[in-house]
């Protein structure tokens, strides 16, 4: 499966916000942290807000805040907002030439099997689990630091 840029950006944004559900991060802060287009991310954020995964807080000190339970929301819940299906790249068209033949149908079932496994994998990984793994990869303590905390830390020596 090859996911769209929007899906990747949504995962970055939701996971960054879920690290610290109390934190409010602007779209620009998230975009800067992951080196992605603010304009594109802004569109993605609107969709995440509509889906109820992110809360948009207006006013001074406002921003985006995670809305949900990181132990319950899975990667699939985010991916499904942006991807129509999880078809594998091994995708023998159901209406293409030879599709109705025994070999065509057998090849389609291989693609279906890959798709089922992809779905099961994404449905089994909660945001909390992914963040725990990310903290290990980073070599960071389990209480991973948010972008805002990191930015504040980086400013401290200058003040």
């Amino acid at each position: 499966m090859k996911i769209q840029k929007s899906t990747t950006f949504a995962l970055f944004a939701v996971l960054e916000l879920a690290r610290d559900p109390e934190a409010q991060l602007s779209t620009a802060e998230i975009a800067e942290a992951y080196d992605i287009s603010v304009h594109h991310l802004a569109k993605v954020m609107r969709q995440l807000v509509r889906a109820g995964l992110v809360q948009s807080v207006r006013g001074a000190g406002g921003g985006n805040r995670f809305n949900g339970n990181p132990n319950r929301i899975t990667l699939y819940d985010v991916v499904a907002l942006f991807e129509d299906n999880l078809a594998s790249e091994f995708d023998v068209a159901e209406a293409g030439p030879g599709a109705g033949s025994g070999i065509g149908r057998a090849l389609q079932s291989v693609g279906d099997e890959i798709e089922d496994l992809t779905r099961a994998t994404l449905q089994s990984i909660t945001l909390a689990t992914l963040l725990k793994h990310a903290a290990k990869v980073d070599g960071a303590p389990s209480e991973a630091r948010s972008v805002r905390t990191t930015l504040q830390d980086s400013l401290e020596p200058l003040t």
Partner: protein
Amino acid sequence: MPQTDAIKGPVDRVELTVRAAGPDDLEAIIRLDTETSGRAKPAYWQGIFQTYVPDQKGERYLLIADVEGVAAGFVVGEVRAWEFGSPPCGWVFALGVSNAHREHHIGSRLMEEIFNCFRRDGVNSVRTSVSRLDTLNLSFFRSLGMTAGPYVQLEISIDEDQASGP
């Protein structure tokens, strides 16, 4: 004497003890399994008890989590070796926590303890097999850090009326 030492401690304000199961725990396990799986399997559990409960001196474990003296969860596992060339590894094949005690990390404590048992047996990896539709258990095992392993599970229908896959 069970090899597994009971471990005690508060888990989210719940007084929890993990210990090796004894013959008197059969009814409690059947009750817990029926509650969590929705299907009573007394004959199956009698067989498991005959195999896993008598000594628990290594390589086969049936552990119980007690909350304030009442069985609230269980885990069953064993060391398996050389299945299609696989070096010895721990296998967990049953886990259940009563609905009333969910989200108190009882499952995690049970797994932590059976991991300790397996470590004492000298193995350094643990496997399990869960239905891809069982998102609750899949998510739980994932939360412990388990990922897809190096072996692929395969299955075939041997019902003569059903066609098998490629």
